[in-house]
C-alpha cells in the first residue's frame, strides 16, 4: 500500500516538473513572439510602411526635417556594425586569452582576485564607462588627431570592448575550468606542453562554453546604448572611417523616439529599425548555435 502511494507521488512530481518547465519555456517563447509582433505592428513593415526596404536600409538618408522627409537608416546600421565588430574583434580574443590564463596558468591568488574583479567590472553602469571613455580617449583624440570633437566610432568600439571583455573573459574562464581535471592530467601525463594541451584538448572541450561567451558578448555589444550614445558622436552621417562620428541603431532610437508623433512615418521607421535590430540579434544567435553544432560534430568533443 505504502509502496504504491510512494510510486504515485514520485510519478506525480516528475510530471509536475515536466509541466512547469514546459510552461516556463512556453512563456519565454511567447514573450519573444509577442515582442516581435508588437514591434512589427508598430512599424507597419509590409503593410503601409512608407518606404521600400531598399530605400529604407540603403539608399535614403535619415532626414526627417527635410521636405519631403526621408527615414533611411543606412548610417545607423553601418555604425552598429562597425562598433560591434570592432569591440568583439578585440574582446573575444582578449577575453579567451584572459579566460585561459585565469583557468590554466594563473596562481590561485590571482584567480581569487580576478574573478570578483571581473564581476565588478561587468556590473559597472554604462554611464561610468561612457565618462571614462570621454575623459581618457575623447579629449586626447582631439589633440592627437586634431579633431574638433573627439567622439568617433573607434572610441565607441574600444570602450565597448572594455565593457564586453569581463563578460567574455569570465564566461570563457568558466568554460575552460569546466573541462575535467582527469582529462587534463591524462593529456599532460603524455609529456606534452601546456600550449599543446590547450590547443588540442581544452579548446575543443570548452567550445560550447566559448560559443556562449561569444553570444553573450555579442548581445551585450549590439544592445549597448548609453556608452555608444556618449562616445560615437551621435551624428546622422554615413561614417567613412573609424575616426568619423556615427550613430548606432540603439543611439538613433534613443535620440529620436521621444520627439516622434505616434504612428507617423518617422515612428514607423524607428520601430522598423528596432525590428531589424531584433532580427539581427536572433539571426546571429541562430548562426552561433548552428556553428556550434557544426564544430562539435567535427571536433568530436
Amino acid at each position: 500500500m505504502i509502496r504504491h502511494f510512494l510510486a504515485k507521488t514520485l510519478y506525480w512530481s516528475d510530471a509536475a516538473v515536466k509541466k512547469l518547465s514546459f510552461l516556463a519555456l512556453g512563456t519565454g517563447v511567447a514573450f519573444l513572439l509577442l515582442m516581435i509582433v508588437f514591434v512589427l505592428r508598430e512599424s507597419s513593415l509590409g503593410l503601409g510602411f512608407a518606404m521600400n526596404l531598399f530605400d529604407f536600409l540603403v539608399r535614403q538618408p535619415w532626414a526627417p526635417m527635410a521636405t519631403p522627409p526621408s527615414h533611411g537608416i543606412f548610417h545607423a546600421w553601418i555604425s552598429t556594425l562597425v562598433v560591434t565588430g570592432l569591440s568583439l574583434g578585440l574582446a573575444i580574443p582578449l577575453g579567451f586569452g584572459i579566460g585561459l590564463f585565469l583557468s590554466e596558468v594563473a596562481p590561485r591568488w590571482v584567480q581569487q582576485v580576478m574573478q570578483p574583479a571581473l564581476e565588478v567590472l561587468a556590473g559597472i553602469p554604462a554611464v561610468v564607462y561612457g565618462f571614462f571613455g570621454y575623459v581618457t580617449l575623447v579629449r586626447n583624440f582631439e589633440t592627437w588627431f586634431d579633431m574638433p570633437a573627439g567622439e568617433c566610432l573607434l572610441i565607441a568600439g574600444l570602450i565597448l570592448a572594455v565593457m564586453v571583455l569581463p563578460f567574455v573573459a569570465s564566461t570563457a574562464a568558466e568554460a575552460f575550468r569546466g573541462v575535467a581535471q582527469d582529462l587534463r592530467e591524462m593529456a599532460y601525463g603524455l609529456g606534452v606542453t601546456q600550449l599543446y594541451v590547450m590547443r588540442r584538448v581544452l579548446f575543443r572541450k570548452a567550445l560550447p562554453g566559448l560559443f556562449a561567451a561569444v553570444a553573450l558578448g555579442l548581445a551585450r555589444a549590439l544592445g549597448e546604448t548609453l556608452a555608444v550614445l556618449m562616445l560615437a558622436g551621435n551624428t546622422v552621417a554615413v561614417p567613412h572611417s573609424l575616426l568619423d562620428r556615427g550613430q548606432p541603431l540603439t543611439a538613433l532610437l534613443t535620440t529620436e523616439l521621444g520627439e516622434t508623433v505616434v504612428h507617423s512615418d518617422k515612428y514607423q521607421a524607428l520601430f522598423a529599425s528596432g525590428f531589424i535590430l531584433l532580427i539581427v540579434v536572433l539571426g546571429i544567435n541562430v548562426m552561433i548555435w548552428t556553428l556550434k553544432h557544426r564544430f562539435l560534430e567535427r571536433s568530436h568533443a
Partner: protein
Amino acid sequence: MIVPMEMTCSYAPEGDHEDPADGPRIFDVRDLSVTFNGRSVLRGVNAMALDRQVLAIVGPSGSGKSTLLRTMNRTLELTLDARVTSGDIHFKGERLYGNGTDPRLVRKRICMVHQKPVAFPMSIGENVLFGVRFHKNWNGRTKDEIIRSCLDRVGLWNEVKDRLSDPASRLSVGQLQRLCIARALANDPEAILMDEPCSALDPVSTARIEELILAMKPQLPIVIVTHNLAQARRISDQSLFLYDGQSLEQDTTERIFTHPKNGRVRDFITGKVG
C-alpha cells in the same frame, strides 16, 4: 621517533639485492616523502621495480598508492598542493627529481594509465597519435603504421579498424581503457604505470587488460596499483605493501602472499583488515 619493529621496511634501499637472480633496478624509490598542503602523505617510502617485471602496489585505501605512482612519472606536481619534500627516484640510474630533469621528458618516457579511461576530443586514430604528434617520435613510420601497431598491441585493431575516424568517445569503457594504453604505447615509453586500470571494467575486459600486461612485460617494466589481491597474484612478480604512507614490505609476490613478514601485511592479505 620510536618506530615499532613491524613498521620498518624489510626492503633495503641500498645496493644488496635480496635475490641475485633479479635483474637491474629500473625504478629505485629512495626515502621518498610527499606532502599535500603540508599534510604528510608519503613518509620515507622505499621501493624498487625490476626490468621486465611487474611490480604491484597494494595496500588499504588512502595509503598513498596513487600518490606514489604519480611521483614516479612526475605527474604528482600537476596537483598544486603536492610537494615532494625529501628523497628521490632513480629511473635507470637517472634522478627523476634531479635539478636539470625536465618533467615533460620524464612523462614522455614513463607513461601513466589511469583508473577511469577518458577519450580526448578527437578521433580514435588521433587519440593514438596525440603524443607522437608532439614528440615527433615517428622513427620512419607513417601515422597509419603507428596507429595500427599500437592498436594491434592492445588488441583493439580488429574492433575499430573500420572506424578510426569516429570520435573516440563512442567506444565502450573497456575499449577506451585499451585505447588509453595504446595512446601511452605510441609514446614509445620505457615504463608503464597503471593506477587500478581494471576497476571500471567488467571481468572480460579485466582479463584482456591482464593478458595485455603479461604480453607487454617482456619489453617494459610495469608498475600497477591494484585493490584486487587476486589480480596482484596473477600478474605481478614483485609486490609492495603500502600502509599509511609507509612502505611496510616489498618482496616477490610469491613470498608476500605466502609468508609476509609484517603483521599488518598478513592481516591485510588474509582479509582481517581492509
